[in-house]
């Protein structure tokens, strides 16, 4: 047998060659320094892999994933029986908390605008308000009139007119 392709030696290391090929290889290897060396190199690469670290998911990984799935709609193809709610078992962030986050964010922007209107004059004030209202449009795209978001927009418009 002439020297086999590297591919075959590599597959031999992985025990992925058919028995006929394996017999031929095992016959060839002991007499061929070149192929023996190639196999040895592959074995030492394998032992380097065996020595490298295996990484475990960081603490809290599953909880973080489940918090994100809770933000998606339930993908269940079967409608739930009426009156039965999706079991939560502590995986989910209640909607009220997310609403609270949004409210806090709104307050931060609002306070920023009010501070801006006291501390700056005309033109820079208009810039701040424009920036803030474009931000608010992203956050509260579908704000119904009279809602918190709508009231906020009305405020910034009013202060723009000053």
């Amino acid at each position, binding site marked *: 047998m002439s020297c086999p392709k590297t591919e075959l030696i590599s597959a031999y290391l992985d025990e992925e060659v058919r028995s006929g090929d394996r017999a031929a290889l095992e016959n060839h290897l002991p007499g061929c320094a070149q192929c023996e060396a190639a196999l040895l*190199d592959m074995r030492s*690469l394998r032992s380097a892999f065996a020595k490298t670290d295996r990484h475990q*998911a960081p603490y809290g990984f599953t909880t973080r994933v489940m918090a994100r799935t809770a933000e998606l709609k339930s993908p269940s193809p079967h409608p739930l029986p009426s009156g039965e709610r*999706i079991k939560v078992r502590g995986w989910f962030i209640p909607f009220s908390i997310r609403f609270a986050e949004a409210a806090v964010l709104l307050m931060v922007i609002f306070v920023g605008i009010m501070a801006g209107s006291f501390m700056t004059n005309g033109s820079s004030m208009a810039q701040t308000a424009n920036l803030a209202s474009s931000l608010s449009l992203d956050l509260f795209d579908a704000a119904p009139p009279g809602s918190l978001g709508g009231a906020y927009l009305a405020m910034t418009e009013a202060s723009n007119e000053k």
Partner: protein
Amino acid sequence: MQNSDDLDRINRFKNGDTAAFGEIVLAYQDKIYNLCRYMLGNAHDAEDAAQDVFLKAYQALPRFQPDASLYTWLYRIAANTCLDYRKKPVFASLFGDSGEGERLVHDRASDAPSPEQLYHSKQIGRELQISLGKLSPKLRAIIVLKEIEELSYEEIAEILAISMGTVKSRIARAREELQKSMQKFREQNP
């Protein structure tokens, strides 16, 4: 072929029990995270990508056919996610390569290595990590699935949706490139 725990979890999930999905994440988070960590090279991107893998799985699981095994399906999503992963420059550079919060596992933790052995294996580990980083993502994916995850050619072919022949030739090529690159590293850092 399908693990019976997985089959049970999949059925419960399809019947509206979302907690069953939490069990799936818990069962496979380490394998998926480790693959992402090797593919992307740092802890922050690995967590980001691994979370995306499970979110995609969550959305696709209702259509999952249990004739394929769950873990090869998850690996497939993970390989594709990492191959498509774009660095998020701001956050990636903020968090860097600290690996904070990561837990390392050694295969044979019991036969406590001596300090010299530890130093030597750390050295080899670094050579290997750097050389892996120089491989093309496709070759990196295949050699990690083989040498780290210890999967068969058949499983790898299924995960990467390529033929057995391609698996065989890519693994050989990845080995060759890694050996060359590690050799070069040793010459430059004696």
